[in-house]
């Protein structure tokens, strides 16, 4: 199949399997996109991990631990897909810790208080599930298939996050303040999360139908679904320009695209510390891998 016919095939809703022939550009775009997703799942547990020992109740500690296990499980599933496309997991991990490959902007920031834990699980996971649900229609079928399980598990995380936030909003003034402060901290990164509003027709990931929607479409969906839920709790969204226009489109202040670029290229407030953590553990656990592989051989 030549590249033009392949393009028409995926653009008309056709799906591709691992053993099918595919253009090199499609394969490399897939690897780049899916690998970044896998990296994000793996790095995304670190901000929450910091709170396992400080969780306010045993129930919360268990729920947070389970969420961390889910996300690491997702990264395993996703790296498997990347591996079948030709890039081994060891190489993905090596590129991650050397800073060669990227992970999502929201995982480069600190988790200051328990309020952040609630806002991350509720709103960061909500933003993520919007992107992931759109991937259920990805032209690469093995990726689309695992997304079903991932979306199913993410839905628990949103519940967990919402429960944390609601509990705090029903608590003392101090607890309510922690949620508001966390929302203030996370709003900027959340608005940057779905990427700059380039037209989907100019987005190579959309052209190949790796993504099935444009960046702005995803952000509008997020605002439409969650701003009313934020407002009804008496929380304030830290953007004076935020409003829904008469034609149903959300207006907002321009997100800080320079910050997004700066953060995902390795300059976020927690980027280096978290990569160092991954480096340390890969090194520390090398003996486990060598023992296990030697025994299996």
């Amino acid at each position, binding site marked *: 199949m030549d590249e033009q016919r392949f393009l028409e095939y995926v653009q008309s809703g056709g799906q591709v399997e691992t*053993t099918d022939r595919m253009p090199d550009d499609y394969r490399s775009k897939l690897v780049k996109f899916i690998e970044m997703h896998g990296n994000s799942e793996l790095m995304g547990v670190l901000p929450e991990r910091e709170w396992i020992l400080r969780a306010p109740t045993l129930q919360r500690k268990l729920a947070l631990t389970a969420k961390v296990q889910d996300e690491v*499980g997702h990264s*395993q*599933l996703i790296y*498997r897909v990347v591996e079948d496309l030709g890039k081994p997991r060891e190489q993905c991990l090596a590129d991650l810790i050397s800073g060669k490959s990227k992970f999502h902007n929201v995982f480069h920031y600190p988790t200051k208080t328990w309020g952040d834990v609630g806002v991350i699980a509720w709103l960061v996971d909500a933003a993520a599930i919007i992107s992931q649900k759109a991937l259920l229609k990805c032209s690469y079928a093995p990726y689309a*298939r695992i997304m079903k*399980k991932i979306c199913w598990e993410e839905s628990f995380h949103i519940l967990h996050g919402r429960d944390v936030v609601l509990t705090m909003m029903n608590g003392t003034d101090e607890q309510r303040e922690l949620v508001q402060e966390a929302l203030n901290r996370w709003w900027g990164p959340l608005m940057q999360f779905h990427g700059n509003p380039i037209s989907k027709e100019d987005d190579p990931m959309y052209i190949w139908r790796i993504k099935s929607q444009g960046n702005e479409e995803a952000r509008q969906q997020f605002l439409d679904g969650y701003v009313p839920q934020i407002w009804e709790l008496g929380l304030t969204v830290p953007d004076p320009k935020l409003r829904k226009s008469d034609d149903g489109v959300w207006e907002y202040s321009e997100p800080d695209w320079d910050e997004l670029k700066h953060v995902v290229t390795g300059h976020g407030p927690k980027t280096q510390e978290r990569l160092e953590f991954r480096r340390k553990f890969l090194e520390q656990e090398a003996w486990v891998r060598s023992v*296990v592989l030697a*025994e*299996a051989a």
Partner: protein
Amino acid sequence: MIFEVFRQEKKGAAFAHAGSVEAPDATFAHAYAHEQYGRRQESEALWVVPRDAIHEVHDFHDELHQTYHRVDGYPLKEKLRLARERAGGTAKSVDALSAGGG
């Protein structure tokens, strides 16, 4: 090694492909599959199969249009209309039979 995992959602259901796990041997593969595909009790049972043991068969052609072994080989609508016409007024419709028969 790569192991493909098939899961049965409930008793009596067919096993369907769920995904794959990478493991150094079968024992690890079982443990990983158990965690990855069953820790929320979402599976009744799993089949964990080395990828090498799976043989894909495809290319199903139908040059001779053998429609006689498929439902689309039996378009009855037109024939039924003709048969009903020939039967004319002598046959009662199903509706009339059930309404009159009580």
